[in-house]
Every structure is written in structure tokens, then in C-alpha cells.
């Protein structure tokens, strides 16, 4: 059964927030919107975002690395936010596994945001209903868009291709292949939510240079016997000729 999800490659994410802004731009005027913006040009701007990027430092100075960590709703296979909703506004679609909120039923009691261990659900302070990433369900099935653009806005916006979109239950899909091959993992597995969004770990590419690679150990053109010697008082063409 299909489970659409995102795979986020932490190895190449540079923390540019393009996914954050493109998500906000797409959804604020769509069926998942509007997305509240308070004091957008003022002192303490705050508002509703479906996707946020956090930054961490790993290690201790001077051996530190920076990790940029985008996180949106992980569309869990066993979503804890669905059974706790008293009105049934929170539901998981059978057909593609996307977890959505029905804004007409939601009473804004915030119980689902308590139940999400990842903090993916936010109450919209103006509309007073709970909102979250919809996996751009209005984009991925939109026949008016060209095939290549039927992906979530964040996936299209990422300049480093750190976000991939596909069916994680289909073992032939690109996302399943990359999870298998690059060691994709889930967040907070101890709670058994089985999030569908996976993260690819950071990888270091290391080159090991051996000392004898810096100096040629043998001369491939050197034969058992010495080659013909050039006349001493003429310039030599070194090893490239045998005479």
C-alpha cells in the first residue's frame, strides 16, 4: 500500500530555508492555508509554518560540524495524533498514507499537538484550527501541473536536492532505494510511531593517501635490462623513449 513521504538528506542540506519559504508561499493561498503571519516585518515575527529548519553543532570546538535539520510532519504510519482527536478532524488517508486535518471539523483543542512527539502540529492563532504539512496533496494530484512539478513545493525548491519525494513502501522507488543504500533512518524510533519521512545521515568521504602513492614505486617502462643509453652530451628525452 502506498505511503508517500519525504526523504531528507542531511548530508547536503545547507540550511538555506528555501523549503520553509516555498512551503509557506505555496500553502498560504491554497486549501491548506492561510498561514498566519504576525509582525512579519516587525520586531518578533511569529506565525504558522509547516516546515522548520533547526541548526545544531555536533562535537566540541575545534572538532565541530554543523547540522541543519529540516522537520515537518513525518506522516507516521502509526500516527499518534489520529486516535486522540475527539472530532475525527485528524485522519490518515488509506490511499496514500498522508495524514491530514479537516479544518471544518477541528475544534482547536490542541490534543493532537500534545500527542505528536515531533512537534509537527501547530495551532493557527488566527483561524484557531490545527495545521500541519499536507505533503502538498493539492500539488501532487493536480493534473494542471506538468508531471515533473507534481511534487511538494519544498522538494522543488531545495537547491541541493536534499529533499526527495516518493513512495517509501514501494521498494523500487527512488526514495526506497536511497533509504536502503544510504542508511536512511527514522526519528525517535523508541515511540513506535513509525514515521514515514526518513532522514539520510551525513557521510564523510575520506581519501587515504599512502606514502608510496606520492612517489612512484616502480617505473613501468623499466625493463629487466637497462635501456639504450642516450649520448651523454645530448639532451635526453627521459623515460618516454627507449632510445
Amino acid at each position, binding site marked *: 500500500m502506498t505511503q508517500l513521504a519525504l526523504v531528507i538528506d542531511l548530508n547536503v542540506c545547507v540550511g538555506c530555508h528555501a523549503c520553509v519559504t516555498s512551503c509557506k508561499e505555496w500553502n498560504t493561498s491554497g486549501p491548506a492555508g492561510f498561514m498566519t503571519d504576525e509582525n512579519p516585518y516587525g520586531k518578533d515575527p511569529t506565525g504558522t509554518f509547516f516546515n522548520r529548519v533547526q541548526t545544531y553543532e555536533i562535537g566540541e570546538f575545534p572538532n565541530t560540524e554543523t547540522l541543519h535539520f529540516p522537520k515537518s510532519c513525518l506522516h507516521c504510519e502509526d500516527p499518534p495524533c489520529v486516535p486522540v482527536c475527539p472530532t475525527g478532524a485528524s485522519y490518515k488517508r488509506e490511499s496514500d498514507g498522508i495524514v491530514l486535518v479537516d479544518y471544518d471539523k477541528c475544534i482547536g483543542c490542541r490534543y493532537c499537538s500534545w500527542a505528536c512527539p515531533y*512537534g509537527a502540529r*501547530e495551532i493557527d492563532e488566527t483561524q484557531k484550527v490545527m495545521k500541519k504539512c499536507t505533503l502538498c496533496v493539492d500539488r501532487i494530484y493536480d493534473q494542471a501541473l506538468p508531471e515533473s512539478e507534481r511534487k511538494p513545493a519544498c522538494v522543488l525548491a531545495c537547491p541541493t536536492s536534499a529533499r526527495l519525494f516518493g513512495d517509501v513502501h514501494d521498494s523500487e522507488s527512488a526514495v526506497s532505494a536511497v533509504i536502503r543504500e544510504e542508511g536512511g533512518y527514522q526519528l525517535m524510533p523508541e*515511540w513506535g510511531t513509525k514515521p514515514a519521512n526518513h532522514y539520510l545521515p551525513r557521510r564523510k568521504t575520506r581519501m587515504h593517501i599512502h606514502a608510496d602513492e606520492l612517489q612512484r614505486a616502480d617505473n613501468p617502462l623499466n625493463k629487466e635490462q637497462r635501456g639504450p643509453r642516450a649520448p651523454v652530451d645530448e639532451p635526453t628525452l627521459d623515460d618516454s623513449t627507449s632510445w
Partner: protein
Amino acid sequence: MHPAFSVIFLTTLIGVGQGVFLALFTGQSYSALELLPVQDSSRFYGNGAIIALVFLIGGLVASFFHLGRPERAWRAATQWRTSWLSREVIALPIMMFFVFVYGAMQHFGWDVTLFTRANGANLQLTLVIATLGMLATFALFICTGMIYACLKFLQEWYTPLTVINYTLLGTASGFVLTTAFASHSAPELMRFYGIWSTIIIVGALITRSASLIRNGRIKAKSTIQTALGVRHNKIQQKAMGFMGGSVNTRDFFHHASLLFMKRMKWIFLVLVFPVPILLLWVGMANNNTGILLAAFVVQYLGLIAERWFFFAQANHPQNLYYQTV
């Protein structure tokens, strides 16, 4: 978690209402078994039911302030198959219905004797209604407690002690209020209620202390390593991606200092347990309704602090993602 006063008032107020009703039920059932003298139905049981109903309605009104869209609140009853909040939304009106019917029957004297025992003790219809109300009361305590106790990520809440504490604390506050009420309307029962209040308060002290001890020993299952999936011992957040705050920073943390938390803990431990017991026995010794009412008020204020602390103590794992601006 951020303690929302709407929910604090909701749970403490309905706790009082439920406790008062349980006290009335206890009194009437003891009377039916001839362990206590029978009371005047309208004056004691009728007015007592009105008191219980006032607190229940107060709690219900407070709950609406927690909703973003209260006009759709009726929808909250539809998912009773999966959601404890939905079950509470059904249990509360059912309990209020029984309290209302019981109160009306007692107030207007519309009682029916169902059968009479040889030695004169009767089974009244009001007692049957009260029994159904008692069952609804316990169901409501369980539903309210389970709303919090079913969230396994909130390790401080995920224990049967949460449900037990809600039940005992609510019942204790109701019994204390009934003691004060009895000193005014049914003086023969005052000592009975005072003794039971003390027993329940002591029981609640034991269970609430047990949960405090347990919470002090919790080892968090979620760490920054499991939250990010990075295996390194030293990970520190440098930015959360925004500076103006969000629902994630406002709704999941109490924003008070550690010292304030410690003070609240001692405030509620003192105001909910020893002080009301003291005031109860002083009030009963002097037959002073005022002192007994003071016991209730002091305990109620302590319960507000206790509920605040209950919410503030819970550590949501999402806070791992929001530690540094």
C-alpha cells in the same frame, strides 16, 4: 507543557463537583443501610446536588475557553471509540444528567420507595439514580485522567497514578466542601464527612507523593541523539530557525524558573494536604462552618497549584528541537 488555566479550572472544578456528588451518594447509601440517620431530602441532598451541579457547569464553561472553535464542540463526542477526550465529553453530560435528576427528585420530594426491608430500611429510587450517578462519576474521573495518562511520550503522565490522583484529589475536595455544607445543613453528618475527608486526603497524599517520587526518577527515553538520529555525545542546538517564537515555544513549556517550580510544589503539598486537615478538625471541634469553608478554599487554591505543577512538570519530547533561539 504549558499549564493552561482553562484546563486547570476545568479539571479542579469538575473534581469538586464529582467529589460532592460522591459524598452525597455515600451519605445516602449509609442512611439506607441505617448506619447514618436519614437526612431531609430537600435541604441536604437537594441543595448538595445543586452545589455539585454548579461546580460541574463551572468546569464545563471553563473548558470552552480552551477550544479554538467552541462552536463545533459538539463534534468532540464523535470519536469515542479512540479518543479519551471524546469519551470525557460524553461522560460529563451523562454525569450531570444524573446529578440533575437526583437533585430534582430530592428537591421536590419526588421519591419512590422501591422496596422495604423488614426492619424499615428502604430502597429509594433516588438511591438507584445516585448509584448510576456514582458510576458515571468514576467513569468521568477515569476519562479525565486517561486523557493525560494515555500519552506515552509524556513520561511524567504515563502512569496509572495520574488517574488515581485525579480521582482522589477531586473526591477529597468534594468531601471537604460537603463537610462544610453538612455543618450547616446536616450537622449529624459533619463528623462522618470530616473523618472520610481526612482519610481520602491522606490517601491522596500517598499517591501524589508516589507520582512525585516516580517523576523525579524518570530517565528520558528521548534524547537529542534519538531526536536527530546523530550518534555523537556532544550535540548542541545553535538555532531553531526563527527568533519570534512559535506555537512550539509557547505551548510546550511553562516559562517559569526552576525556583518557581520548586515553590509551587511545596505550596501545593502544604495547601492541599496538612492545612485542610488541620482546618477540618478545628472547624469540626468548634462547629464552625466558616473554618470548614476556609479548609475547602485553601485546598482548592492548593489544587490549582497542584494542577499547574502537574502540567508544568511534563516534558514534551518536542522540546528537544526548540532549545536555543
